């Protein structure tokens, strides 16, 4: 099953994405193909490579976006692990964007309330920072058994298995090295 797949250029470190649609040349009439290309759903779109957000196989996916929405996603044919194939979850990654169930606004639920209220980012972030500070300051321990401990054991931070490396780095830096949390846990434990 010899497939002649167009080779893609090495992506320059500038981040320029030179990925074009890999065409499996099956030897059909090219002129006719070109004539119809305009109605083709991904015609002229430049895909962006990403890695599947689900399991840790780490398959490559190409994302085609147009008019500020994702119109199509497909396995990255140049990716050495999946070579263009995907499972059912990887295949439907497009709907992670298009699902109308995505939350798009910060929300707040007051104590005892039975509903969410939409709030502004600045307000929410300010409030969260204040809460963190209040709790930390009230519960902060500097010494334990004569040893400097600089910690709070009243705030926990959980999750992170779906974050990027850079995000996990900043998260553990902020929570542990900055805020002094000891309860730092994520999905690797469960």
């Amino acid at each position, binding site marked *: 099953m010899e497939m002649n797949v167009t080779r893609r250029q090495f*992506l320059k470190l500038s981040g320029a994405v030179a990925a074009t649609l890999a065409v499996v040349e099956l030897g059909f009439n090219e002129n006719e193909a070109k004539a119809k290309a305009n109605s083709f759903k991904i015609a002229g779109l430049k895909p*962006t490579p*990403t*890695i599947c*957000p*689900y399991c*840790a196989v*780490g398959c490559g*996916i190409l*994302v085609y*976006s147009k008019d500020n929405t994702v119109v199509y996603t497909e396995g990255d044919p140049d990716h*050495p*692990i999946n*070579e263009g194939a995907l*499972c059912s979850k990887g295949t*439907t990654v497009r709907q*992670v964007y298009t699902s109308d*169930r*995505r939350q*798009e606004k*910060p*929300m*707040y*639920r007051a*104590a005892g309330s*039975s509903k969410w209220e939409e709030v502004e980012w600045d307000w929410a*972030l*300010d409030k969260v*920072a204040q809460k963190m*500070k209040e709790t930390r*300051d009230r519960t902060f321990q*500097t010494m*334990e058994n004569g*040893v*400097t*401990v*600089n910690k*709070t054991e*009243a*705030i926990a*931070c*959980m999750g992170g*298995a*779906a*974050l*990027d*490396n850079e995000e*996990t*780095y900043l998260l*553990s*830096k*902020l929570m542990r*090295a900055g*805020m002094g949390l000891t*309860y730092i*846990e*994520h*999905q690797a*434990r*469960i």
Partner: protein
Amino acid sequence: MTNHWNDLQHTDCAMIIGANPAENHPISFKWLLKAKGKGGKIISVDPRYTRTSQQADIYGSLRSGSDIAFMGGLINYMLEKELYHKEYVIAYTNASFIVDEKYSFEDGLFNSYDEAKRSYDKTSWAFKKDEEGKILKDLTLEDPRCVFQLMKKHYSRYDVETVIGVTGTDKKTYLEIAKTFGATGKPGKSGTILYAMGATQHTVGTQNVRIYAMLQLLLGNVGMPGGGVNALRGESNVQGSTDFGLLYHNVNGYMEVPTASPEEATYKGFLEKNTPKSGYWRNKPKFYTSMLKAYYGNNATAQNEFGYQYMPKLTPKKDYSHMRLFDAMYAGELEGLLMFGTNPVVGGPNAGKEKEALSKLKWMVAVDLWETETSAFWQEGAGSKPADIQTEVFFLPACASFEKEGSITNSGRWMQYRWQAIQPKGESKADLEIIHLLALRLKELYQNSTKPADTPIKAMSWDYGHGNHPDIDLVCREINGYDMNTKKQISLFANLKDDGSTCSGNWIYCGFYTEEGNLSKRRDHTDEGMGNFLNWSWAWPANRRILGNRASCNPSGQPWSKDKTVVYWDAAKRLWVGNDVADFPKDRAPDIEGGTDAFFMLPTGKGGLFAGVNEGPFPEHYEPYENPVSNVFSNIQLNPAVKYGLEEMNAKGEAKDFPIVATTYRISEHWQSGAMTRNQPWLSELASHMFIEMSEELAKEKGIKNKDKVIVTSARGKVEAYALVTKRFKPHKLKEKTVHQIGMPWHFGYKGIVTGETANRLTPHIGDANTTIPEYKAFLCDVRRA
């Protein structure tokens, strides 16, 4: 994973136990089927016949929680039939080491057990040393006190009849598995073991994995292409998030979190206590100091112990892991909780109780793409009374992985970059930005404080560009590390310093961002041989693709098999060369001291057949926390080193009330707690209903028909769902009695396009003796028609 996904194609036999890759890591089967096409065999060992089993050449059934019996029997078989790879075992494992006299084993317990503390004195499982401190060995493996002989004796109790009486495996099938996998013990052949949560989510999870590793060492499969012990990790970046210290007991790169013990009161004392005298970890001070420099920048100086005192210290022996965290929350010890894309109300053990615990919080922050069962735990739909719950909840919308850029690390340790394909949806933001904005606010709140207690947050460096959006490139540069003076990127962790002249946020990632740029962005898919793709992205450590690959060569440095060449010793160049980066000092010749220490990261340089984890140096079979039969191997029922948590969080069920073994699992079409997938139409369509899988025999006994609604109860809760009566589940015919088992997916909750009751309302709040991973995979229940 010691190896990686593409490498699976080189295996002669893959034993899949405690994993279901066809469903949970489907693309692995692209490579497994390539191996099968070349004559390789696939073995599937699972309590039920899965989609993996259908693609396997041999399917063996076992009762949930009997893995050690199963594997112990295989070790016994390999030793009895002499199928093990003797030269490998002598050269690369500690089989020849003489064990200290203190070691003993009797009726399920090793020496030095403290029943009150439910723990052992691990130092009592030591090797005998000569006056110079060198370990005594018997390279003939005949000394009755050598590891090999002790191991042989230990597993001689695991004869086939006893084993299958515990596991319920059909004898013919068991022997076929033993013979087939045993064939990989031949020099030049390789077999791989693939496992996942089916292995780890047990009270003996660590020992399950240990015994896989022991079998692989015996058969000479570790370090081989197509070999290894491969954990199939379930989340896209669970590898990275573990590498980056998001567990209470590790900082970045698997180094210790300081504790408030007197020895660790100073940085010097901390390093002394935690740095081994031999093996690569001797370099730990370089890595730790560089991390502290990354954390505190110029505020970390030799004078202030590089900011060591700013780091929080754990209370010695205190367990802060997930279940204990929820115990503390339930007990009202926690005020606030921040969650980044996690959903314990569906995914946590004894989820009903964990949900209750949340209501004791004063405030909670959920950063997620979706409104999850956890962020909405206070709603009536969750069975809560909102008026009674005083927790303030903040929901911060995060954007999806392709709406931002950054890298993730797959199970094979490949660090791959993801580019931004589209702007974040609506007002959602990248987690990086959310964390950044929080950090900026916190630093601002503390900037004028003069309290000593506030020094850590003030000292923490946070220089990721101006404005609200952090410059990810600066974060990447800091993770890799650079010279504090020249600001030049460090090319490899070997160049890190312990004098504060270098920083590196995570030493195992040092080398991914050199002066050449960010290597995780590389997309050159040229295969230089054996499918290692060295110029595709970057793998930690040092771009090595197969861990322990020195062991793919014989002691004199030549491959065990020409077909399976990854690295070898080039005597002319006096270098280890090949199509992978050698996991070995690149110029250490085979014939010099340490030249055959294939596992050079370890203090002894040898693979540990004998290694002290919390419940003993050799894995021993114990029954799950809840189980319907007695332990045939000893009078010790439960793993003696397992700790109990808060009693209220962990009601125990007895076999007389709950006679059926149950397990949870995942299916191909949903992911984890379902927050991602049950909010999408197409995946919701593929799997829309919560179901309970059971055998035709059990269904008949209980008067249940396929598609009936049934209720499953455990000591902790109940779940209603459809019955899926199938030939793929069979009762386990054990020596003592026949035991029924059922299984169910744990993806469902009450939010989303498709909903269903949450399986984890049934699971126990108890976990492994080392990792405290909960025992989701074996518990007791009963089932009836709804």
